[in-house]
């Protein structure tokens, strides 16, 4: 006998689902449709018919013709790969150390997790103070040699600053997953490997790294997407460099927001958003199609 509870009334389930439905409609579907709408239309500069003109792919053509846009794309890619690589590498080293039960690993495990709980703008603000070339903790290096560190002047310094902020925040998150992944590797495999003659570094590379691959892949997708388009990137850039100096840290996400809400070029920003979404889809597709295949072992 199939005992199923059946609710007769139709309005009760709808009522329960309503808050979530409203959230999705107002903050996802509506904006998404608006983006499409804006991307293919243009508002006359001095008003006019009171409605936007349909312009086809004009907005996209304009975006693609802009050299600054392509620079932003390559900056974003550079940032995404470097920040992801740095944060995953450091998290891996820390996780291995904690997994080896080195002295104090319990306390460090506790502390490493904290940065993820801090909002990106707060991270940006803190690092802005720490790395302020005139008065921050870093300022001492400029007494050795003037302008050894000045993110307000040199684009490369600004990029380094943004990458450090992002990596610092995401190390904690990566660390949690890696620690959990490492703990699920049977201890006897590491013991067998050390009987076979390997030292700690060799063990990490030959045994722990490949067996951690599924976890690493998951983190790779997450980190790349987040650094490429995530709100963290926007928040950090906005509070540390504001895309400067000379647009050296003008990532795609930052460019879209500033163009839309400071430059009030909704149509151009909407077109860029669509391109960005497309890029993420291609990105994720490549990762699942080609990278994931190589990380699963049986």
């Amino acid at each position, binding site marked *: 006998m199939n005992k199923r509870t059946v609710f007769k009334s139709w309005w009760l389930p709808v009522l329960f689902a309503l808050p979530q439905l409203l959230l999705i409609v107002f903050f996802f579907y509506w904006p998404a449709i608006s983006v499409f709408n804006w991307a293919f239309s243009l508002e006359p500069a001095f008003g006019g018919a009171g409605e936007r003109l349909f312009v086809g792919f004009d907005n996209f053509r304009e975006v693609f013709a802009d050299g600054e846009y392509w620079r932003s794309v390559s900056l974003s890619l550079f940032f995404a790969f470097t920040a992801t690589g740095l944060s995953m590498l450091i998290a891996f080293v820390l996780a291995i150390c904690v997994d080896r039960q080195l002295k104090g690993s319990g306390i460090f495990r506790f502390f490493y997790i904290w940065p993820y709980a801090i909002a990106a703008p707060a991270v940006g603000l803190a690092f802005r103070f720490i790395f302020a070339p005139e008065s921050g903790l870093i300022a001492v290096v400029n007494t050795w040699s003037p302008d050894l560190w000045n993110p307000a002047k040199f684009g490369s310094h600004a990029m380094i600053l943004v990458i450090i902020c992002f990596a610092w925040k995401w190390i904690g998150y990566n660390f949690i997953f890696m620690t959990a992944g490492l703990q699920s590797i*049977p201890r*006897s*495999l590491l*013991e*067998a*490997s*050390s*009987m*076979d*003659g*390997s*030292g700690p570094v*060799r063990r990490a590379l*030959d*045994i722990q790294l*490949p*067996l951690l*691959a599924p976890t690493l892949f998951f983190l790779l997708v997450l980190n790349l997407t987040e650094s490429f388009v995530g709100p963290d990137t926007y928040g950090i850039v906005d509070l540390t460099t504001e895309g400067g100096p000379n647009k050296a840290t003008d990532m795609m996400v930052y460019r879209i927001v500033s163009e839309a809400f400071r430059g009030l070029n909704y149509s151009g920003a909407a077109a860029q958003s669509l391109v960005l979404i497309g890029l993420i889809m291609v990105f994720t597709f490549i990762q699942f199609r080609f990278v994931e295949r190589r990380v699963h*072992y*049986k």
Partner: protein
Amino acid sequence: MAEIGIKNVRKSYGQTQILHGVDLNFKSGEFVVILGPSGCGKSTLLRMIAGLEEISAGEISIDNKVVNDLEPRDRGCSMVFQNYALYPHMNVAANIGYALKVAGVPRAERDRRILETAKIVGLEELLNRKPAQLSGGQRQRVAMGRAIIREPKVFLFDEPLSNLDAKLRVQMRVEIRRLHKRLSATSVFVTHDQVEAMTLADKLIVMNKGHVEQVGTPLEIYHRPRTRFVGSFIGSPAMNFFETTIAPGGDRVLLDGIAQAIDPLLGSKNAGVKVAVGIRPEHCRLVPAGTVNSVPANVDFVEELGSGRIVHVEIDGLGFAVSVEEDQFFEQGAMAGLQLPAEHIHLFSQETGLRLDDAPVALRQSAPKTVAA
């Protein structure tokens, strides 16, 4: 080939002591089996030899070189783990050859030795498989191959057969013994299975609760168990015991009021001592009820083995197991007579659990108390 010396080795985790001062010496090329119930510290001892556990106190030496502070890789040991510990992401060839790869052996040389080793353990057809695609016995062979390719001085086996089914276990046992003959490295094999222990060992070590109970050849241990624990642990079905006092004359003990002769030379020195009398089921004799010199026994139940049977009898509330021949039949509930041949009776002090025998007291290893004469 290497000697192993273990001197007063102790292991403790915080306040809990696992090993209470173990002293052992293994000769070069010997096949040593450490036998004991779970939790007796046998695996811990093995892992201390391997370098996977720290040595809390004492000294372990391999080839006359103290290895306490050496990393596992510098000790020249190979180990076969209970769960095999194969690298799941490497195929059989890579698993077997991993040690050589770490050691930086050139590829051609490595491939040659992998193939050679695979032939020894019978895996040359399966070199490209991943461990997940192998059966239990095949995984076991990979683990063995991985251990022998390094040509180690010492082989360590940590209950390697306990995950196999019964038939495979017998087969692998024979292969391990054959392999040992061929490689003649010193081997230390830890197990809780007494049949494995008896069949494999040149030297058998019985451990209990972090102490070494007895060291000897399998036959010595079977015939002259040093303690009551060893007597009861070795042999299947287990040794029968009853507790009594050696009669004043020193030539007999009483079972259900009936005199059982014991070795008079031994008994006369220990008259009046409270003893546990042990006798193995295969040494008891079951005769028709009423036979002279037999103790009347009630047949409780019979276990059929095919090649013989185990008859469980009861005497005044005491249970005895007796192994009988194929042609001897006993009905459940019937009466029979039990005979205990004097030459097969083992006497253990009730107080210390130590064997009473004619060996001088000084030779009884680390006897806590002198047995009353």
